[in-house]
């Protein structure tokens, strides 16, 4: 096939354009993939926050329906387990002024005596299982003397700011609700 110089130049130009287009297509494809991955992450974050809001809403509604502190605690813990899919959450009573004589829920590998130490020391997060990399968030409920509280274990490192804020909010609502219940029942 005998091609002259201008035809060769034209062919080279067309091939270059095609190559550039192909490179652009691949780059855009990769970019789209990255954006879609980020979008998926954002969707999960949003779902997580929606679930948190749902738990707090359910808790704020149930506090007026439940009259015993035990019921309020159990309901809150069940709500976190069911709606927020956070399985390892537990209530630990302290010896003095405990509202329930038994703990409710369980955190594998965490003993009651250890939990008591964490509450007494006023720690917010503890790496209780260094080998397994497991942390526990300590959220005291009750303002005077921090007599009891909830603990939430995390297998994925420390609890983040958002999770801490969520559990603190739950602890605060429980404090108010149970104080109200206690005063009302005394009257």
């Amino acid at each position, binding site marked *: 096939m005998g091609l002259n110089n201008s035809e060769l130049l034209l062919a080279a130009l067309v091939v270059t354009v095609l190559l550039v287009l192909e490179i652009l297509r691949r780059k855009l494809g990769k970019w*789209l993939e990255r954006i879609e991955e980020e979008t998926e992450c954002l969707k999960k974050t949003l779902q997580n926050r929606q679930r948190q809001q749902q738990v707090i809403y359910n808790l704020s509604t149930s506090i007026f329906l439940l009259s015993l502190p035990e019921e309020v605690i159990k309901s809150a813990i069940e709500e976190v387990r069911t709606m927020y899919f956070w399985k390892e959450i537990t209530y630990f009573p302290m010896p003095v002024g405990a509202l329930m004589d038994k703990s409710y829920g369980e955190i594998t590998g965490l003993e009651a005596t250890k939990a008591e130490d964490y509450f007494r020391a006023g720690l917010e997060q503890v790496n209780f299982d260094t080998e397994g990399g497991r942390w526990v968030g300590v959220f005291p409920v009750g303002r005077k003397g921090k007599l009891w509280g909830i603990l939430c274990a995390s297998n994925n490192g420390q609890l983040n700011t958002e999770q801490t804020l969520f559990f603190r909010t739950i602890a605060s609502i429980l404090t108010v609700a149970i104080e109200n219940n206690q005063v009302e029942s005394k009257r």
Partner: protein
Amino acid sequence: MNIFWVISLFAIIAMVIGREIYLLSSKIRQAFQTRKTLNQSITQKYQQGRFLYHLCISAFIYQSYSDRVEQLLDEIEGALNWRIIAFWDFNETEQALFYRSQRGLSAKFVKSIHENFRDRVEIGSVAAGRAISTRQPLIINNWHKDPHLKGLDFLSEFGAVNSLGIFPVASRLKTYGNLHVFGETLNQFKLNEVQFFATVVNSFAAILDNDELARRSG
């Protein structure tokens, strides 16, 4: 093979790739839009979460009822940027609501409330009275079409408001009043807003109970 046919073949391939690029770019545009919306929703949820946390821990310091109400209105306005809000007190003896305070409502709207209602709404009447009688949130997403606000179109114009959420503040102990949240556009109350403000008033009622019980027990 003639050069013409070679170039034509390349041109067809270029068109196919070009079309793919076009489709990809529109998908990227859509993905950016979705990401923007998601980011906005996440930020909104974060602000709402922080607001609820601050509201709940505020219970640990005793405050008078009127200070609590004013603080609630200030914080809804400041932290959530929800510009138009009002609070009505419920009087058990008179079985009526009495206007207490507002943020962002025009002077004309407030004047009209004074003149037309004498700052008072009977239980069961108009939207506010209906909400307090059922102790359930009442949502009006179109001011002009809702039967609860029949004949009150002028208020929408005075306040430049088009939607309204009424959230009763009531606990087992007492019915305190209504939080009125106004929207400037139609359909401003979706599930998220309704659930959020319902959580706010429930928590607020528990905090008011806490203050009330602390006051009674000295």
